């Protein structure tokens, strides 16, 4: 007679570490096995890259923004707003008009993603579960800084994929439930660096335009409504300048995904409300 395997009783509070030991096959490309290579395609490229090969690849990976997408976050009086466009591209074609790039990471944190869709979606799914798993095992959630560091560690383990051009970059925004005032925003790079940003941040190919726009539109002590309006304006600017970013499509009722994290937690802004704000914008 057997019961649950021994790995189920090993110490630790990380779901990813547990998966590595118990079911590495389930842990797909998003997070490579520790010390090993990601199990994704191209056997030629799967050998460990030499230092000479890494340097240019790393420069390319860190300097080229992920193709497509604008996801931005900005802090306001009582929390933080995160917004992302809905376009997914495949070369010069549009793969989807209504993909979602902003998700709840947990009750008080939002995560947005830019980059290769498959990897990005898996990264989000695994990260959501990692936070939930920690909370259940420990009986209390991670601190916000702890959440950002955990995400950075996950990115570090997918560095090799990023070197092959398969990068996904997240943006994290949230607040500590106990703390008052504006939310906090963390941006990341492919090497697993986590950088806390003041007031606003953006990732994706349209990030440059969105940041320029936010710089002028944001009001750090403004209301949620003003912040949402600034976010929509910035996304509209990005969509005008960047082919990888989709604009709002009122004819099809497709609006950006906009989420707010305040003292009540994560909430997605309904399309109806966005439609009204868009009316005032144009």
């Amino acid at each position: 007679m057997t019961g649950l395997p021994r790995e189920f009783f090993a110490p630790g509070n990380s779901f990813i570490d547990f998966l590595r030991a118990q079911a590495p096959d389930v842990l797909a490309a998003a997070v490579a096995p520790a010390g090993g290579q990601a199990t994704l395609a191209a056997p030629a490229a799967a050998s460990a890259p030499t230092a000479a090969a890494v340097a240019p690849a790393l420069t390319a990976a860190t300097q080229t923004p992920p193709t497509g997408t604008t996801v931005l976050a900005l802090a306001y009086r009582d929390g933080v707003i995160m917004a992302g466009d809905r376009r997914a591209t495949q070369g010069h074609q549009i793969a989807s008009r209504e993909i979602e790039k902003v998700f709840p990471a947990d009750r008080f944190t939002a995560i947005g993603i830019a980059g290769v869709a498959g990897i990005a979606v898996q990264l989000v799914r695994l990260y959501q579960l990692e936070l939930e798993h920690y909370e259940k095992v420990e009986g209390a959630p991670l601190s916000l800084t702890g959440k950002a560091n955990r995400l950075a560690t996950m990115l570090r383990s997918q560095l090799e994929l990023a070197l092959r051009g398969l990068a996904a970059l997240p943006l994290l925004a949230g607040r500590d439930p106990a703390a008052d005032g504006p939310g906090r925003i963390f941006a990341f790079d492919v090497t697993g660096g986590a950088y806390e940003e003041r007031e606003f941040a953006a990732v994706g190919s349209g990030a440059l335009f969105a940041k320029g726009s936010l710089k002028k539109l944001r009001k750090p002590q403004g209301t949620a409504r003003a912040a949402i309006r600034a976010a929509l304006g910035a996304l509209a600017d990005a969509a005008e300048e960047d082919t990888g970013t989709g604009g709002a499509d009122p004819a099809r009722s497709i609006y950006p995904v906009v989420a707010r994290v305040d003292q009540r937690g994560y909430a997605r802004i309904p399309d109806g409300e966005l439609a009204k704000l868009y009316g005032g914008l144009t």
Partner: protein
Amino acid sequence: MTYPLYVPPEQIIKDRADFARRGARRGLPALALSTADGVLLAARNPSRALRKISEIYDKVGFAAVGKWSEFEALRVAGIRYADLRGYSYDRVDVTARGLAGAYAQTIAAAFTSDPKPLEVEVAVAQVGETQMDDAVFHITFDGAVSDELPWAVLGGAPAGAHETMTEGWRPGLTLPEAGELARAALGALGGGETAFEAAVLTRGAVGRSFVRLAAIP
């Protein structure tokens, strides 16, 4: 010439069962019961840090009594089991039944072949769409599972508590009514006025339904 001492297998099992039962029932009791508003989990527990009740997954909760180190290991293993299953398949594919089976196997294996049986009693509960869909699995120290009742009383001296529950439980109990019943059942076991620990798996919640309560409602 010496002969190994012969001990009949019945005696070995009985000794192990006595040992495990004593260990599991030494501590303060816990219970799980189905109500109209969800599944209530409650325990007598003076500690604020060492919990007897826990969230496992969206609709699945856990309560245990006995040796803390042993049921804590089972609790964490249960969370891993549920998260692995939900990640590999889908969140709706995680059920109390599956976890109860895994626990029963683990506890039964320890009972027959480990140097020492586990001194624990575990309840795995699931909240359904209606009260008819609720499930409460009761797993004892030897790995025996039962799910006949809509409630389970773990540990302690359950005779008085069982009667209280049998008489007091009916379908459609509200959460405050169930809280009163739980308090009576847990209190009937004596042991002075100690703190209670309580949580509810809320019926109709989207996603995670486990809510920890400051006290029994």
